[in-house]
């Protein structure tokens, strides 16, 4: 059937003005924040679960795949439309209502398009917040967080999204609607809720989500420590954890990052430091005081030149703003960046950072590191100008080497951004065929015909050498 017929039927299912197929508009939905480019056939904006279900049924009738999309801040190409036939992009941004807030039972039912930070802002007067706090939290949707099982600095203590989702209503690939999980703690049957979280939009579209709300800590202390070598900083991270302390957040930024971030936020970061650690401890006053002085002592013992404690909420906010805008601010050095997301055993931080640095410098690439040090979640950031001849090949090659280095150190492909298209061909670096086959069983049980966000996460077979440069054209450009 033709695209015109598809547009017509979707228009009937939704409303004609919320179904778009103009070339310019389609181009805006051909990728997410990753710059991995695909091709959409239609973009539509449902406003209710009923409409999502109707749209999915139309896709089924027309034999079209579909791709769920939230705010499009994903970094692994999860919302990039790929498929044998160009998929329909189903955007949840117009489903952005907070449906119910239950402060007694500490949860909220929200529509998937609600922005992460909006939710926390809306419940702050109740002394609550939604704990997962990706650096993109002002922009990313709760639906996207669920699909990617997103993390953030404070997930070190509070846990990633999966620990904060109680239940959700999902439209499956055949258009049927199911509720997975529940408000009660031990719903009957398998933990399908847990299986859905992190499935990157390949098992259905979440249309309503019950998220746990966490009390705001009564007391917070934020420490900023600067080091003259990255080694000292990394050793301090291990030192804190070894002392039996799990801070609320434990973040590292290297000199390259500190410099651009300071230029953006003017938060008073020491621009002459080789590395900066941002440590936050929270809880009750007494414990926070004890913990703050313990952490301070450990940082100093590991060679911190200076440890500052944020004087007030404004200073803390400025530090976090700096940390959270690092990815964007890097464009002040060069217009393109390729951001990696790997996890490694925390104790390997020093060697892996060394090796990653060598990988970049031997190729004359500028590299910055800004990451969740507390849980070993690296974000090496290669900055380049794609207009320079030959640079793309070098960036790809470095990217592959970085992944290999992390995996060789006992790490894994992604700590929070997901696999999407970006890393699907690297999956066999960490999984055997049996492992991947079993993952496919799960996916197939939810979507036997493979119509929901095809070509994501699992390798396409064929090329099985973990070769990242076998990506679609336009990757990371």
């Amino acid at each position, binding site marked *: 059937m033709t695209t015109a017929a598809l547009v017509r039927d979707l228009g009937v299912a939704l409303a004609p003005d919320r179904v778009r197929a103009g070339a310019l508009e389609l181009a805006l939905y051909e990728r997410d924040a990753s710059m991995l480019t695909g091709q959409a056939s239609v973009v539509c904006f449902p406003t209710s679960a009923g409409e999502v279900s109707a749209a999915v049924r139309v896709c089924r009738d027309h034999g079209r795949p579909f791709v769920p999309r939230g705010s499009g801040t994903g970094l692994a190409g999860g919302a990039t439309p790929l498929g044998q036939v160009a998929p329909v992009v189903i955007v949840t941004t117009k489903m952005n209502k907070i449906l119910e807030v239950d402060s007694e039972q500490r949860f909220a039912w929200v529509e998937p398009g609600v922005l992460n930070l909006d939710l926390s802002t809306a419940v702050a007067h109740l002394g609550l917040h939604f704990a997962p706090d990706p650096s993109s939290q002002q922009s990313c949707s709760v639906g996207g967080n669920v699909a990617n099982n997103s993390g953030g600095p404070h997930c070190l203590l509070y846990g990633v999204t999966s620990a904060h989702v109680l239940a959700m209503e999902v439209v499956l690939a055949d258009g049927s609607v199911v509720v997975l999980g529940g408000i009660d703690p031990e719903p009957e049957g*398998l933990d399908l809720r847990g299986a859905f979280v992190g499935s990157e939009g390949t098992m259905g579209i979440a249309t309503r989500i019950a998220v746990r709300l966490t009390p705001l800590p009564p007391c917070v202390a934020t420490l900023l420590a600067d080091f003259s070598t990255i080694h000292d900083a990394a050793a301090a991270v291990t030192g804190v954890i070894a002392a039996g302390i799990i801070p609320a957040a434990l973040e590292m930024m290297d000199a390259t990052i500190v410099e651009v971030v300071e230029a953006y936020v003017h938060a008073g970061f020491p621009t002459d430091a080789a590395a900066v650690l941002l440590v936050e401890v929270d809880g009750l006053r007494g414990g926070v005081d004890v913990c703050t002085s313990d952490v301070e002592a450990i940082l100093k013992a590991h060679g911190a030149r200076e440890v500052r404690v944020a004087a007030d909420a404004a200073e803390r906010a400025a530090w976090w703003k700096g940390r959270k805008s690092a990815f964007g601010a890097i464009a002040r050095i060069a217009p393109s960046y390729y951001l990696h997301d790997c996890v490694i055993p925390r104790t390997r931080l020093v060697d892996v950072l060394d090796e990653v640095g060598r990988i970049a410098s031997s190729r004359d690439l500028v590299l910055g590191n800004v990451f969740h040090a507390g849980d070993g979640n690296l974000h090496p950031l290669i900055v380049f100008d794609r207009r320079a001849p030959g640079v793309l090949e070098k960036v790809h090659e470095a990217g592959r080497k970085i992944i290999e280095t992390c995996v060789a150190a006992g790490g894994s492909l992604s700590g929070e951004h*997901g696999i999407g298209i970006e890393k699907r061909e690297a999956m066999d670096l960490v999984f055997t065929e049996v492992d991947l086959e079993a993952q496919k069983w799960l996916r197939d049980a939810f979507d036997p015909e493979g119509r929901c966000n095809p070509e994501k996460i699992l390798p396409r077979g064929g090329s099985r050498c973990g070769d990242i440069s076998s990506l679609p054209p336009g990757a990371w450009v």
Partner: protein
Amino acid sequence: MKDALRSFADQIGSEGPVAVAGGKTHWGVGGWPATGTKEVAAPVGVVAHEPAEMIVRVGAGTTLEELRSTVEEGGQFVALEADDPSKATVGGVLAVGLGGYRRLGWGPVRDSVLEMTSVTAGGEVLRSGAPLVKNVTGYDLCRLFVGSLGTLALTGEVVLRCRPIPEAETWWVGEGADPFAVAAGLYRPLSVLWNGIHTWVGLAGYRVDIEDQARTVLGRAFRPAERPPPLPGRLRRSLTPRDLRALPSTAGVDRPWLAQVGVGVVHCGEAAAERIGPVGPPSSGVWDLHRALKERFDPAGRLNPGRSVSGVAAGAGV
């Protein structure tokens, strides 16, 4: 351990009904294995505890007691509970997937699992997750397997998240206090338990904080307790946290029950369980998904035949 896993897989083979026997503390949950089911044992022993990584790799046949004592040496603990830790095995606790009294503070069992090495119905070794405290690489089969009663794969070895042992853990008991107000007033309590008359409170963390909370929130109505109360019965019910309020009338105060305030789990015996009523079955759509999963993971139905994940919380016997 590679060898132990290999021989675990060999025992399971690829044909015939099979189940893993752990401590058999919850052997009847979800139904008794069909007669003729071969019983195999999972590898036993702590393979490696890495305190700096906050992880421990352990054979699924290891008892919770052994796990605890090993990890404790590194100043850490694993957030798994069982009523008989000297018998209950890690694999068994994960297969059943139900937590103990400290769920309010520790979170559900599934959040402690980082990696699982299992054997599929086809007899092949299957790894999911990674031995890392943070990881979103691929589909989350671990969460699918926790609480699956071994109906999708049989687990041989797992990597669990460890946490630092807090400076102190103390218990308190009081009478007449509103347990819901107490739970709401405390900051991140470990546990609040209520039997309709008494309220037990578990607090863990820095000593200063515990003292402060005990003074300002618990007050005179509470006195220190040695330990949490014993289980009132082997059954459990899952209610929304708010529905617990009605327990004195729904379950009655004369029949023993113990509710986890803020969580919704009710531990009870037959009598109270009956009064509260059974847990509703999953919807038909959800049930279809269960069937679709079982068809793919275990088409011949050889893993734990006779057991069903529906009815786990209802606790079909012990």
